[in-house]
Structure formats: structure tokens, C-alpha cells
């Protein structure tokens, strides 16, 4: 039982990290209707840029700021060069363009920053916490303090974003654009500014995700593959819901670890977590084609 709890909690915390990546997807999808396949590569790009700056001797905080700047510029460039010409194309075309973009960014990142794996030390300890140390009747489990830090960061980010979307004027503009770009324009909302803003924020989210994941796994190509896991998260949580991204992330993180443990043990084979989230998402889709929190669209014929 204790082991189960430990795995569960580890899974949930890992799920929070997935949510972070999923958040980036949701932002961009909400604002421009594009599923940004390149989000994962953007995470990698951010992490690589940061690490390279750090390793060339620049101060931690300044590196962070510079990387943020780079990500914002990158986002703006993407919006201008890649997305704007394709404004009215089908979602599938847009998806394929972002696949191309992910290849491009991957090549670019590795060309600029090199192919090796970099270690990333954020200065956060990863000492395991024995719950029993803090709480009398706690179950006998270990929790990674790094994971807790990550969870808290993600939570903070989500809270800030939620506030931004619901309470600020820009957030409202964003929601308007995602609902109906033409109507938003007719009310005077500057479409391109909003889209640029979104990509900048998504870039920032990618940076945070990149830093957290990078320090956990080391900064390497595998980071961009993590992003693919975000897809099941979005399926379950809905493409347009921030809450959904969180819930979905938790669900995927937990179920993936548990499946690895129990299903893997039953078959005696490892690697279950590579495909389990997708199959889970698939099953979900069969019952709720629009996800848990997504909106279904009514088409006029």
C-alpha cells in the first residue's frame, strides 16, 4: 500500500510537469486554433539556450532573462513567418506546419548549441522527504523535494495564468480571439498583437517547463519527445481548458506510473509508459470525443 502511494504521488507530481507542457499547447490552441506540435522542441530550445548561456559564464538570473527574451522573439518570429500566411487553412495543415517547425527548431537548436547532453542545476535540492519525519501517522513513503518544488512552481504559474485570462483586459481579448477571430477584430481587438502575446507567453511557459524538466532529466533531445506526451493530456483535458490541462496531466502522470508498475509487472515487460497514455487517451476519446473539459462545436449546415 505504501509503495502504491509512493508511486501514485510520484506520478501525480510528474503529471504536474506534463501539465506545464500541456499549458503551452492550450495557450496557443486557445488563441490561434493551432495545435503546436513544435511546443516540445520549443521546450528543448529554451533549455538548451539557457544552459549554453549559463555554461558560458553568464549569471543565472541574467541567463534566465536572456532566454526569456530569446523565447519571446522566437514566438513572435514563428507567428509572423509561419502562421500568418496560413491563417485560414485547415487545422490539419496547421498541424503539419508545426511538425515541420519542430524539425526546423530541432536542427537549429542543435546546430547552435550542440548535440551533447547538458546537466542543468537549478540549485534546488532533490533530497527525498520522508513524510514520516513531518507527520506522525504518515505512510512510510518517500517524496522527492524537487518534485514538490516543481509542483508548486507549476501551480503558481497556472494561478497566474488563470488570473491573467479571467481578470485582465488582455486575457479577455485572448478569449475573444480564440472564440471568434473575425468578431474579435470587428470589435477592435488587434489580432496580431494578441497572437504575438500568446506565443510570447507560451514561450515563457516553455522556458519554465524546459528548466524544470531539464534539471530533472538533463537537457537533451529526449525533452522534445516528452512533449508528445502532452497530447494525451490535452485529449483528456480538452484542448482549450487550462483546468483540463492540469487534471489531464495529473491523470496521465499517475496512470502512466501505475500502469508501468502493475501492468508491466503482470506482463513482465517494461516500457509500458511509452504507449499507455495514448491508449488511455484513445479510450477516452471514444466516450467523450471532445475531452473532459473541452467544448463541442455545433456546426451549421
Amino acid at each position: 500500500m505504501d509503495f502504491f502511494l509512493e508511486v501514485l504521488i510520484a506520478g501525480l507530481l510528474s503529471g504536474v510537469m506534463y501539465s506545464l507542457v500541456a499549458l503551452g499547447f492550450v495557450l496557443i490552441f486557445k488563441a490561434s486554433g493551432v495545435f503546436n506540435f513544435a511546443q516540445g522542441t520549443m521546450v528543448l530550445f529554451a533549455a538548451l539556450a539557457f544552459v549554453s548561456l549559463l555554461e558560458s559564464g553568464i549569471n543565472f538570473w541574467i541567463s534566465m532573462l536572456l532566454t526569456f527574451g530569446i523565447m519571446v522573439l522566437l514566438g513572435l518570429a514563428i507567428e509572423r513567418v509561419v502562421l500568418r500566411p496560413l491563417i485560414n487553412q485547415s487545422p490539419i495543415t496547421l498541424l503539419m506546419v508545426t511538425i515541420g517547425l519542430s524539425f526546423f527548431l530541432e536542427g537549429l537548436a542543435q546546430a547552435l548549441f550542440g548535440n551533447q547532453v547538458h546537466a542543468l542545476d537549478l540549485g534546488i535540492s532533490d533530497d527525498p522527504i520522508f513524510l514520516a519525519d513531518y507527520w506522525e501517522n504518515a505512510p512510510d513513503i518517500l517524496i522527492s523535494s524537487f518534485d514538490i518544488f516543481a509542483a508548486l512552481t507549476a501551480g503558481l504559474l497556472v494561478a497566474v495564468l488563470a488570473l491573467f485570462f479571467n481578470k485582465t483586459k488582455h486575457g479577455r481579448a485572448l478569449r475573444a480571439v480564440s472564440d471568434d477571430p473575425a468578431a474579435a477584430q470587428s470589435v477592435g481587438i488587434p489580432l496580431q498583437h494578441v497572437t504575438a502575446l500568446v506565443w510570447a507567453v507560451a514561450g515563457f511557459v516553455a522556458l519554465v517547463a524546459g528548466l524544470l524538466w531539464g534539471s530533472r532529466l538533463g537537457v537533451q533531445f529526449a525533452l522534445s519527445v516528452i512533449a508528445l506526451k502532452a497530447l494525451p493530456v490535452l485529449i483528456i483535458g480538452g484542448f482549450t481548458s487550462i483546468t483540463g490541462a492540469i487534471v489531464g496531466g495529473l491523470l496521465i502522470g499517475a496512470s502512466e506510473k501505475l500502469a508501468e508498475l502493475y501492468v508491466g509487472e503482470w506482463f513482465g515487460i517494461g516500457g509500458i509508459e511509452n504507449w499507455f497514455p495514448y491508449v488511455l487517451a484513445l479510450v477516452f476519446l471514444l466516450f467523450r470525443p471532445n475531452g473532459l473539459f473541452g467544448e463541442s462545436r455545433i456546426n451549421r449546415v
Partner: protein
Amino acid sequence: MIYREAGQFKTTYADDASMLPLREDRWFIWGLLAVAFIGVPLLANDYWIGAILTPFLIYSLASIGLNIITGVAGQLNLGAAAFMAVGAFSAYNFQLRIPELPLIINFLFSGFIAAGVGVIFGLPSLRIKGLYLAVTSLAAQFLFEWLFTNVEWFYNYVSSGSVTPAPMDVFGIAIDTPISKYLLTLSIVAVLTLVARNLLRSRIGRQWRAIHDMEVSAEVIGIKMAQTKLLAFAVSSFFLGVAGALYGFTYLGSIEAAAFDLHQSFIILFMIIIGGMGSLVGSFIGAAFILLFPIFMSQVMHATLSGVVDQGMLGNLELLIFGALIIFFLIVEPAGLARLWQVVKNKLRMWPFPH
């Protein structure tokens, strides 16, 4: 004015509906076939045949398969390589466990197994549309990658996970030289291309294009969604499966799960995007482009910047340029190189006049 339709009248619908209505086109295709079947084996060297032409044919076949489901029927499939893997591993296991099975029948059966798998993974498409369907194909991709890596039965418990197919023969003729492998591949690809062409210009092709463009309209005409979609999955997966079997048997000479990863799926997707989605000719053009481009690039790099650019960097540049090309084509010419080819043909019709 070399290439024009003027003077070629069709007096029956049968003539008008024929595959190659223009005399010049017929000559071109017959010429091409002559070069492929006779010229190449006589003139080309082993490197070209084994390392360029054979994989070109195989990738073209895979592209045709992906084109059928994604280009024509409009159902996004991001896991093409997984279906190739199913074909490859089926062929290997058939050969291993039923050695008397003739090679061609083996490939056919492997194709059918891939088709069956395709139908299963196509079932969700009846409920799920568009973007969400991408998840299904990714699920297939990762599931099969895992399956063929971890379930040892598939690769006969060989510790490295990579297996070698036994020597092949067709009707008693051994297939062990690059030329014989090439000819085998060429024959299979030629026949299947013909089948694809026939399907696309018949009622099935129209049904597939109908469900791509407008599902509601298609239903209103009486097209049965489920059957049409599942048939598209089946046929497309059949083509992919056979391509996979050929990939392992006649090109690589070995079969392993790692050869059919997500990257491979994306490469095939790129082939059909660059070649032109839904275009049969485009499948070939796209495959040629993506195969030849890296070779071309490394030659250019060698000639101009030798020493400056190393292997790793070359790989990165490749990614960069492919990505950029995808973006470019989708923005500028979504109909791909096939459209450019048509433009060239149109110019030829008028040459030497400008319009």
C-alpha cells in the same frame, strides 16, 4: 508544341476515361518502364541500385499508402511506420515459421495483416475527427514500437532485437543480388501502383475524396461513412505493410523495431507533403526528393565547405532544411511538387509559345 492534346480526339467514354489519354504520356510511361526494367539493371552500378533506387521504390510505395489515407481520404495518420513494421515483422515471422510459403504470397499475407491492423486503428475514426485522430495513429506508432521491441516472440528471441530474413527466392530464382532485389521490388511496386491508380479513378477514389472534402455531403449522397473510411485504412495499411516487408527484406536486409520509429513516420509524411498530397505522381516525386536531397547536400557541402561541416552538423542542417521546406511548401504550394510538375507539363504543351 511537342506535348499537346490537339489532334487527339476521343470518341468513346472508354477512351476518355483511360489512364493515360495523351499519346505523349503513354510514350513517357512506357519509356520509363523500359528504363526501369531494362536500362537500369544493364547500366547502373550496384550502389545506385541497392542504396538509392531500391529504397526509392519502397518509400514511394509507402508514400502511396500514406497518401491514400491522409492525402485522398483526409484522415491524418502520424504512425505510418508502425504499419510498415507490422508488415515487416509479419513477413519475417511467416518466413520463419512457414518456410514453404512462397515469397510473394508471404508479402501478400503480411499486407493483409497490416490491413487488418489498419482497420482496427481506423475504427476510432468513425467517432473521432481531425486532430484527435492524430492521437490514434500515435497510439499505434508507440504501441507497435514497444511491441516489437519488448515482446521477444516477434524477433525470435534474438538478443539484439534485430533479425535477418532468410535468403529469398521467387519461382526458384534466388534473390540475393542488388539487381535481383531491385527487380523484385520494382515489379511489386509497379503492380501496386497500377492498382492504386485504378482505385483512385474509380468510384472508391471518388468516395474517399468525398469524405475528405465534405462528410455531410458525402452522407447525403448515400456514401456509407464507416465502410469508406475503414476501406481507406485497410488499403492504405496494406500498401504500408508491403512496403515495410520490402524495406526489411530487399533493402535493409534486417528487421528491427528501431527502423520503424516516429521519425520514420514523419519522413513519410514529409514525402507526401512535399510531393503533393493525394497525388500518385507526387508520392514518387516526394520520395525521390527526400531520399536524394541529403545525398545532394552532402556532395555540395563536400565540394564547397569540406572540413568545415562535420557529420553531426550535416544531420542538423538536414533537419533544419527539411523543416523549412515543409513550412515553405505548405505555405506556398500545398499541392506540392506534383503541382510544379503539372505547371512544367503545361509549359511544354505550349512551348515554344509563352501562352
